[in-house]
C-alpha cells in the first residue's frame, strides 16, 4: 500500500470512528471523500448520472443504518463499496432502472491511472469499458480506477482475491483486444 493510500485509509477510518460516535462533521468528511468514487462505481450499474446521484443518497442512508457493522480499524472502503454494490443491485432488481444511457461527458470525473491511460484517451476508455460485461467492468473499475487491492475487490464482490485477480486480468485483456480492434478499424 502506498503512503498516500495508507494516509487516505487512515483518514477514512478516523471519519468512521467519529461518525460512530455521532459527529456530523465526520459524516460530512466521509461523504466528501467518497462521493466521486462511489458515483463512478454506481455509474457502472446504472449508466445514468441522475440515477447514480439518487442511489448515492440511498447508499449513504444504508451506510447510516448499518454504521454499527463497521469494526475499526478494518479498512473502510471494502465495507462501503459492498454496501454501495448492494444498493445498486437492489435498484436493478426493482426494475426502476431507466434504460437511457447518457453521453460520456455526463459521467462523473475520476482520474484514470497511467496503466489504463496509455491504452487510449479517456473518452474511448469510458466507451470501451461501458461495452464490457458488468462483472468485468466492475472489477476493472474497483481495482484500476478506484485503486482497491485485489483482496479488497474480493471482499466487496464476495469472491477470493485470486479470483478477483484473474477476473481483472481477463477484463483487461478483453479491453485491450477491443481497443486494438477499434484501432484496426480506424
Amino acid at each position, binding site marked *: 500500500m502506498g503512503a498516500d493510500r495508507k494516509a487516505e485509509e487512515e483518514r477514512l477510518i478516523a471519519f468512521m470512528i467519529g461518525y*460512530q*460516535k*455521532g459527529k*456530523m*462533521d465526520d*459524516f*460530512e*468528511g466521509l*461523504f*466528501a471523500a467518497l*462521493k466521486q468514487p462511489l458515483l463512478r462505481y454506481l455509474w457502472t450499474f446504472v449508466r445514468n448520472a441522475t440515477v447514480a446521484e439518487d442511489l448515492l*443518497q440511498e447508499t*449513504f*442512508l*444504508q451506510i*447510516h*443504518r*448499518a*454504521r*454499527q*457493522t*463497521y*469494526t*475499526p480499524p*478494518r*479498512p473502510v472502503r*471494502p*465495507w*462501503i*463499496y*459492498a*454496501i454501495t*454494490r*448492494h444498493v445498486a443491485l*437492489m435498484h436493478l*432488481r*426493482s426494475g426502476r432502472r431507466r434504460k437511457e444511457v447518457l453521453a460520456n461527458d455526463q459521467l462523473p470525473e475520476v482520474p484514470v491511472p497511467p496503466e489504463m491511460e496509455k491504452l487510449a484517451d479517456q473518452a474511448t476508455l469510458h466507451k470501451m469499458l461501458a461495452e464490457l460485461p458488468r462483472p468485468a467492468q466492475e472489477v476493472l473499475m474497483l481495482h484500476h480506477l478506484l485503486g482497491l487491492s485485489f483482496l479488497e475487490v*474480493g*471482499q*466487496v*464482490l*464476495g*469472491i*477470493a482475491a485470486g*479470483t478477483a485477480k484473474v477476473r481483472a486480468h481477463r477484463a483487461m485483456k478483453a479491453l485491450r483486444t477491443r481497443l486494438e480492434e477499434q484501432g484496426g478499424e480506424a
Partner: protein
Amino acid sequence: MSTDLLPESLRRSISADLEPVRPLPPAWRRTLQAAAVAAVGLALVIFIFKLSPRADMEQLPMWLSWGCTALQLGVGVLLLGMALREAIPGQGVPLGAVALGLGTAVLMQVLVGIVTWMHSHGMPLVDGHGMSAGITCTTHDVAMALPALAVTLWLVFRALPLRPSIAGLLGGAGAAVTADALTHVLCPMSDLRHVLVWHTGALIGLMFIGWLAGKLWERKRYENA
C-alpha cells in the same frame, strides 16, 4: 468541511438520527456467543429427553466416537462463524469457501455414519418401526440445533447481511453439524437407511430452514426499502 457537497435532504435525515453507536463485536466474539448458546441448547435437550450414549460405545474406537464429536463440533462452530462473518458488508465469504464448508458438513456426517456402521451395526432397525425411530431422532436433531440456529440468525440479521440466504444456509449447516456431533454418539442405530434418511435429512432440512429464513428476511427488507 465540505458541507456544500452534502445534499440538504440527506443532511437532515442523518442529523435527525445521529445517535452514537457501538461497533458490533468482531465475528470471532459473536461466534463464541453463538457457540455458548449452542452448548447450553445441546445440554438442555440431552437433559429434557434424558438421552444417554449408545449402548455399543465401547465397540467404537475413541477417534470415531468422541474424536469425531470434537471434529464435528469444531466444523459446526466454524460454519457458525462463517455465517456471522457473511453478515458484515465487505467480509462476505467467497462462494468457493461456502461450497467447501457446506460440502464438508454433509460429507463428514455421511462418512461418520458409514464408518460407524462398519464398526458396529448398533441396534437393528425393526420392520415397521423405522418411521417412528426416524421421527424421534429427527426431533432430537432439530431440538439440539434450533437454539444455535436461532441465535446465529438473530446475530446475522442484527448486522447487514448482503446475501442473507447464504448466511442463513451457513448458519443452518453450522447448527446442524454441532447437533449431529452429539447425536452420532447418542443415536443407538447405525443402519445406513436410518442415518442417511433421518439424520442426513435433518442436516439438509436445517440448512434449508436457514436458507429460507434468509430469503424471507431479504424479501421483507426489500419490501420495506
